């Protein structure tokens, strides 16, 4: 159970499962949420090191949720990676502007996915290495 704690937020259950299977196989401890309120509850009880956030959620949008998390001192430095099937120019900037640290486009490359997430964890928030 020693793996780093990750939270996967995605309303599409198959995609949620795919991401968590890949990350669990890589040794992470993963929890999942399908909407903003589930996500907020888990952020509180589970305090993940990294949140993989589908930016298209029903109700509150993923980016609004990110903005909210960024405003909270508890989560202002948690690594958040946007996860989306959109790929228009400007979407990436919007995600970054909302406070995401990176951006992964679906469909994912299952052979690289976990390593990419590890990369984000190592870099920490906005490229500033985590405090040693």
């Amino acid at each position, binding site marked *: 159970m020693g793996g780093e704690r990750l939270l996967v937020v995605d309303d*599409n259950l*198959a*995609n949620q*499962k*795919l991401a968590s*299977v*890949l990350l669990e*196989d890589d040794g992470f401890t993963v929890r999942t949420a399908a909407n903003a309120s589930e996500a907020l509850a888990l952020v509180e009880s589970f305090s993940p090191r990294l949140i993989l956030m589908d930016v*298209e959620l029903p109700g509150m949008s993923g980016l609004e949720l990110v903005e909210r998390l960024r405003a909270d001192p508890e989560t202002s430095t948690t690594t958040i990676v946007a996860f*989306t*099937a*959109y*790929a*228009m*120019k*400007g979407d990436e*900037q919007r995600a*970054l*502007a909302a*406070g995401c640290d990176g951006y992964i486009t*679906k*469909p*994912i490359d*299952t*052979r*690289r996915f976990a*390593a*990419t997430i590890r*990369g*984000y964890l*190592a*870099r920490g928030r*906005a*490229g*500033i290495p985590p405090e040693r």
Partner: protein
Amino acid sequence: MAEIASQASGVFHTRICPSILASLADGVVVADEQGRILFFNPAAGKILGIGPVPSTLEDWPRAHGCFLPDRTTRCPTEVFPLVRAVRGETVSDFELFVRNETVPHGIFISVNGAPLLDERGRPVGGVVVFRDVTERKRLLDELDRKNRKLEEASRRKSEFVASMSHELRTPLNAIIGFSEIVHDGRAGAISAQQKEFLGDILTSSQHLLRIVNDVLDLAKVEAGKMDFHAEPIELEALVQEVRDVLGALAAAKRIRIETEVDPALGVVHADPSRLKQVLYNYLSNALKFTGDGGRVVVRALREGADAFRVEVEDTGAGMKREDLERIFVDFHQLETSRGGRQAGTGLGLALTKRLAEAQGGQVGVESEPGRGSVFHIVLPRFANGEESAPRPGAPTILVVEADEGDRAWLARTLSRAGYAVQTAASGAEAIARCQERTFDAVTLDLLLPDASGWNVLRAMRAGGPNRNTPTIVVSVVAEKESAAGFAVQDFLVQPVVPDDLLSSLRRIGASPGGGGPVLVIDDDPESVSVMETVLREAGYRTIGCTDAATGLLASEREAPSAVVVDLLMPGLDGFGFLERFKKSPQGRAPVIVWTGKDLTASERARLESSAELVVDKLKDGMSVLLESLQAHVPSPGGARGR
């Protein structure tokens, strides 16, 4: 002679001129310098709906219902065209709205006016000429409304396409992802037949994904929302990659594919994935429309000094002349000779054309029915834009990497960061490259097809131009221990993120020098664009951001050579930015604070310890900023030390 002339001019004045004025469709009114109406032609009366002798000029707008084009503001006397003409001004295409008892619905008129001058050029009155433009205006308004409707429809279409592609890609993520996991045996052992079937599912879903992506790409280029990333390309290898993808199809139809890359072509810079897309479209068509046993040639040649041309020639069905211009149009497919539709979407060539044009290139085709076709694309040899050819003097990195995808990724990452890049796919190639020249750094894969990376390193260290070249091992195997005994400067385990690689290179002293862009951060978008324009004119490359958090992220993606930052911004302000930026690996770049704020002594002290310079927006101005920037970072056009 003079008599005849003056006679003629007399006739002109007394007879010809009045009859011209009487038959003109345009209204003409003349007033003297006191504002008395001297002349009023019939058309003027008809257009304005007033009798031949109107009131004096002064109260004309009031008496005859002249309004500004908003239809409600009575035209003020000072701007009334005839008043201005009498005052000595010229008026052109001034629009008025006229409504009175005779024209109850109102009309729009467009007025031109000019002063009347006497022989010595002194103003003695004014003349206006006007016409009814109500109908023209109505048509223009209607056109405008229709245009707006069309724009709206096209915007909705783009939005629809974007959201549709989102909906389609979402389930594909799970389909492709889970198939891949099971296919790779990562979810337990599977039989050979299961693996084969899963391979079929994967191939088909990749195909579906390609169609979805084509549709999305078309919408993207159409909306100007596509990014291009140019980098040095080895055309021979790129063509081979596309041939590999289509190899099975060619083999099934026994079609021979030949590649002819002109050795004189040299290096080209283009977006490899987009070029592959174009080549794929041409080549798949060539195979589709060529009969069994045919021949297809892919050719790459130079086109003038600054462009290159890629051609795909086939011995297939060919096309009639009148069809040639239609095939590059969206979704257009020609009737086949057998009648009926071919498989396909008709998207390929439309997308190809848009991709070429968006990169400053063009496409074309020559064809003869029954004999075959030659499709071509011409692209600039050095794509301009942010990722162009490395600047002279940029450090050169040798990338030794067996894996095709990783090699492309490394080359792309490095050239985006401003390095010049050479690549080698095998140990032998790497050793050969190392004998040719001294590199500024080498990235080394350990698992090479013909040798271990350690053998390459041993050969390098044994002597020659790269005896002391700093080397970073970049490999999937984490056998750090065996590095002992070899002088390796860093060890990165794949997959690597760009930052690790770039900061590692910086650490070992191979920085792209003045290659980085100047980062401009100001919350006012207007100021950002002005600053960017000024800096670009001075020869700098720029990246603009309207908030500091985005600025930090941008600096991380590409180390800036300098930063110009505003102090007062909502969210993270200039002080906060400086604090964080200076701690980051890119923090060595000089920072110029560009502010209109009156600084307190303590603020100034705080800035002076972290920023290289504080320039006052108002007092110092742009020229001081530019001068001091040039002192820190000479613009890339000029001489530059490393």
